[in-house]
């Protein structure tokens, strides 16, 4: 598995470096395809990790709501990092920053219930 990832990664990088001098537009596309391939390879592993952690959390029988929003937040975090990295490599830093900002806002939207209940609990302790 890891050999496949390394092979794809190195070939993509070499292709991108070579293409950059000949066809800069194509280089970005090749980079995208390479990243997508690696991501597809890793997805099965990721689902195994998440489903096993989910199983453990379900067995504890508490805070499943909290945990599912944490999962979504982590997923958004991953995707934003990857997308922002690709955009930055392609040279458009502004787009990368915009993606990061969008990700932050989406994460904040998902995290609001958590922060709200945190504030409620703390106020409950003090009151």
């Amino acid at each position: 598995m890891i050999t496949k990832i390394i092979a794809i990664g190195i070939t993509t990088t070499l292709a991108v470096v070579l293409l950059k001098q000949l066809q800069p537009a194509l280089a970005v596309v090749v980079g995208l395809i390479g990243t997508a391939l690696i991501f597809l390879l890793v997805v099965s592993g990721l689902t195994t990790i998440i489903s096993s952690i989910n199983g453990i959390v379900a067995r504890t029988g508490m805070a499943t709501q909290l945990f599912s929003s944490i999962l979504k937040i982590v997923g958004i975090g991953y995707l934003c990092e990857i997308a922002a990295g690709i955009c930055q490599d392609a040279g458009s830093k502004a787009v990368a920053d915009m993606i990061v900002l969008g990700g932050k806002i989406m994460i904040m939207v998902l995290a609001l219930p958590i922060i709200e209940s945190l504030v409620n609990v703390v106020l409950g302790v003090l009151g």
Partner: protein
Amino acid sequence: MDENLTAVIDETLSQLDFGDLAHLSVFGGDNFITLLGQILSGKFFADYPDVFAGIIALLGGLVVAVLPVVVLIVAITILCGFVGTGKERGVSNLVYFVAYAAVVLLVVGSVVDLVTLVGNTLNSLKTQIDLVFPLLLTLMATGGAKTSAGIYQPAVAILSSGITQIFSGVVMPLFIISFAFSVVAHLAPHTKLDQFIAFFSALFKWVVGICFTVFLSFMALQGITAGSFDSISIRAAKMTVSGYVPIVGGYLAQGFDLIMASAVLIKNAVGLSGILLLLGIVLAPILRVIIFSLAMKLAAAATQPVGDSRISQFLTALGKPLSMLVTCLLSVSFMYLISLALFIMTGNVI
């Protein structure tokens, strides 16, 4: 002599007013009067293995109850630790913040439970003090230790109203404040509030220490003088009876002995039952707080290599406020225990 003593004990017991004490249960099973009977007849001490098995079962249950929180904390930290490894910028900071908020949410939920538990335990200790000590004082006076009883009365009043008030009114809020500070201190990586936490725990230590010293020295000093005074007055009474009442004086003095011995025996059994009752009330909460504190240390150790340092630092910093909770329970129950022990030791004047 033995049968006579049993008869007198039964009679004295039947005349005592146990009040609400009769309804209190010890270790969840026997009620106070049954326990008292068992101690008086020497049967109780055959049941030690049962008590130990109970404690082991309690420990197991507590450990199982605290595991889900640890598992959740570690799972959340590992998941969020994946995002943005090695990058300063980007969404990773926000994800870490959310992870911290989620962990704090989990921990605060458990800590709120613990605070309510400790508060309830302090209240039931106060109830128990209010119930046991009047009975003990009555028995003490019956056993001939009138002066001691009179001197201990204000001490008991201080213990039952003053000290429990200080603990639930001053010491518990101090715990909550220092807990809140340790939550806020790790919210952002550069917030530095360590000295505030240190200040509150120092304040806590001084309040508890002063309560302890004042109360215990008062009890001990008063107890010593009162005990010897009682013993002199009782000897004098006994000598008067046996010396100046003609013919039957010797027998009367022996009967006097018997009644006082029974009262002393019952007083000591009541004191011992009080100690067992105290253990029954206090043991479970103390163990629960200690196990929770250890579990947080374990979670801190497990999250340190994988995740954001804030979470493990917060979990480590929890140790201080949690030890305050344990100290709270331990010191009140220790003061109570010392007074019970003093009551058992003094006034045994025959």
